[in-house]
């Protein structure tokens, strides 16, 4: 239940902060950087030595990758509700994207194009596997008629 507690407390701290305030809070001895995109808050816990301004860029990097992936709007300043639901119903895909961006908390790739390409390649592997499975099942169901 620890995860839930973290989310609850942290959201409490962050949601009460006004819009003009800086994007950094200290919570239980950790530094947390957060950025708001419409109704979504992206928060990252960082080490003492990390560069807070860079982390803001990393968050933005991720948001742009997600946007490109879910492909709703090209203009990032309009982040429709649709995208929020995309994240909820496709959370695992959001994680796949995150895994192309960060490993062990460190940045993995600075090119959005490359990240997008890698995710697309893996998605097509999944598609191929699905097609194979469904064609197999077709064969089987034909055979058992």
């Amino acid at each position: 239940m620890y995860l839930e507690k973290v989310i609850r407390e942290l959201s409490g701290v962050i949601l009460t902060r006004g819009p003009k305030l800086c994007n950094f809070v200290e919570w239980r001895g950790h530094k947390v950087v957060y950025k708001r995109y419409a109704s979504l808050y992206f928060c990252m816990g960082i080490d003492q030595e990390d560069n807070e301004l860079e982390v803001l860029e990393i968050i933005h990097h991720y948001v742009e990758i997600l946007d490109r992936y879910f492909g709703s709007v090209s203009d990032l300043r309009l982040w429709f509700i649709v995208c929020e639901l995309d994240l909820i119903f496709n959370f695992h895909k959001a994680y796949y994207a995150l895994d192309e961006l960060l490993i062990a908390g460190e940045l993995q790739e600075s090119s959005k194009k490359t990240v997008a390409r890698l995710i697309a390649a893996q998605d097509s592997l999944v598609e191929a596997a699905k097609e194979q499975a469904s064609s197999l099942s077709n064969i089987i169901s034909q055979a058992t008629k």
Partner: protein
Amino acid sequence: MIPFSSGTRLRDMIRAIRACKTAAEERAVVRKECAAIRTSMNENDQDCRHRNLAKLMFIHMLGYPTHFGQMECLKLIASAGFPEKRIGYLGLMLLLDERQEVLMLVTNSLKQDLNHSNQYIMGLALCALGNICSAEMARDLAPEVERLLQFRDPNVRKKAALCSIRIIKKVPDLSENFINPAAALLKEKHHGVLITGIQLCTDLCKVSPEALEFLRKKHTDGLVKTLKDAVNSPYTPEYDIAGIPDPFLHIRLLKLLRVLGQGDADASDAMNDILAQVATKTESKKNAGNAILYECVETIMSIEDNGGLRVLAINILGRFLSNRDNNIRYVALNMLMKAITVDAQAVQRHRATILKCVKDSDASIQKRALELVYALVNDTNVKPLTKELIDYLEVSDQEFKGDLTDKICSIVEKFSPEKIWYIDQMLRVLNEAGNFVKDEVWHALIVVISSASDLHGYTVRALYKAFQTSSEQESLVRVAVWCIGEYGDMLVNNVGMLDIEDPIMVTESDTVDVIKIAIKHHALDLTTKAMALMALLKLSSRFPSCSERIKDIIVQHKGSFVLELQQRSLEFNSIIEKHQKIRSALVERMPILDEATFSTRRAGLLPAAVSTSGGASLDLPNGVAKPSAAPLVDLLDLSDDLPAPSSSDGDFLQDLLGVDLSPAPTQSGLGQIQKAGTDVLLDLLSIGTPVQSSSPTTEILLPSQNDKSPIATLDARSSSSSLSAQATSSARAAPMMDLLDGFGPSPLKPEDNGSVYPSLVAFESSSLRITFNFSKQPGNPQTTLIQATFTNLTPNVFTDLIFQAAVPKFLQLHLDPASSNILPASGNGSITQNLRVTNSQHGKKSLLMRMRMSYKIDNKDMLEEGQINNFPQDLG
């Protein structure tokens, strides 16, 4: 057979959960889904595994327990297909962490996948490993990952680089293996591999000094060139952010250069130019540029000094500090924190701006600025800074008050130039934010007040005035109540007026009023009430005319549900009514509280007061002699029943503030007995106590020793360390058993016929005689068995007789428990105690022993000491 047919689909479950209006509804849905998943898992349903795990992950994110799904992850990872592995690894990372033992089972699958032909599957394995592996897994799989650092595909190389970071963090010994392959990555052109390679090198330097040396010598120039190329590179849409080509690369390079340049003049020299270029040329309109400048300034401040660069850095810092963007200002405060170590003067110049930041509307900036202020305080600026901070305390938000109060109290305590300033500042703080002041802080204040005898009058008057305006501040009330109780007479008679004061009119009755109000206003605060009752007792003695009125107030608590208050009420009432003769002695002015002891105890260095088992509590943690009030020990024994939780820091003052009626040892010399038993032994062996001179004693003990052979002389160092290792064992019947003897207790065989030796009067004084009878076991000449007999030569019975002995290092002494510790008078009975001495220098050196006997006559402590140099020669 249609795949994905059984059970709800993932999105249906998510929809159902989101549609729930109450937590109970949600729990019901989740429960149903979990049951379905469990059934499906039990049936080993291959097709649904993927979907089940996805559902489980969602449920996990909501906060429900999902450990039953862990094995599913393993099964999916072990499957052949890419989609299964993909979700299996994700599930692994979400549902498990390195503490789970189940994780070990994945090691084999990971190994296979790290060698897979499909580079994406390799990627999955590297990602999972890099995110959650344990130290054991790291060790197992490190060779694979190392190999992959040179794999043909850049996607794999960059993931391997980051995975390696976790490995060397978990198992630093392995870092040597990674140095060369990591350094090779620094020459890459692919940005992803380059930045991950740079990150790996940075972490290697932190973990391995060899890596640092190697990279510093061989790669600093290369890295400088890479940064130059990055800064000067043309526009590429792929990497451009806010007009800067790949700021992430810039920043990582700056970080690595920082690590390499720190502490090394040559490396620092090599990077001067590029740092200057970055500092001057980087656009600071957008966040990306500022992020680079921030990193650049941090690097400049960390490497070896170059005047010009530092000036550049300070300039940037100044610009950031006055920027309107809160993020930039926050980061500027960070930079200033770093700059203090480098150029404290420069930072002091910005003090005014920093103070302004303390009052900022942004809580994060306030916190940062406050820490910075704290770091800036020194003896010259402490007074104006404190004034500013306390002024702000009056208007600050409630959330910030706690932090601010803490820091102010810290500053005041650390830097206080004179006591009157300390007291003034603390009074202001108590006035303003007394409820935020920690217990140990106002305890310390009382200690300081008590030690400033010339300020007692001033302090009590100031507190009286403060009370009139701020009686809702708990700590203020407590300190005021204590002081008015102690120094009430000074208050009423305007004693000890300072030049700056005006006389005030306070009657005896007024002081009683104050206490009465304190009790009423803080009806729920038991500590305050208890202290108030104590103060009333003191006042009843100082102002006998108010006794009646005080009695009436005290008596109101005799029915209190709180035992402590009830007890105090009844007992104080009784003192006022029936024991006027001793009352004044009881509540005499307290002696000065020992600041030094208080601060060391507070820092937790001294052991907590040894509690005597049963009987009257003769403990005095600070060893200060108190006016003797022995006859009333039982009547007024107020043990630590105070309901208010007192930490070990508070115990000390609790004892003094609440339990100050416990009797003192009548002689200061006896104070030693009250301390932990080790103090006694230290005295005996004259080790470790700087006060006593050790040399004459050691000479007496070892008359034949002139040289410093480690075996023979009392090796003060090791003895005291072995003593302190045993410091916690309380000294009771056989202290030496714990301290100098490693052997467990074993029964002596007194009837063994070794040679017969003459008995020895080991000690004789007018009150006590100790006789030693010797024997040895045959075949064991080094060990002497001694039976000690104690005889009481006085007409008074001795109680609590404790015998302690010390021997030089070449002897080992073992004491059995005594037959009794009550010694009847006039020799009408005796106590026996067996000792065993083993002589490692048997034949070369004879036995020597020093003794200390403590006992009580009529509950008065007595102490006698002696030495035995005249053991029978043939004992050996």
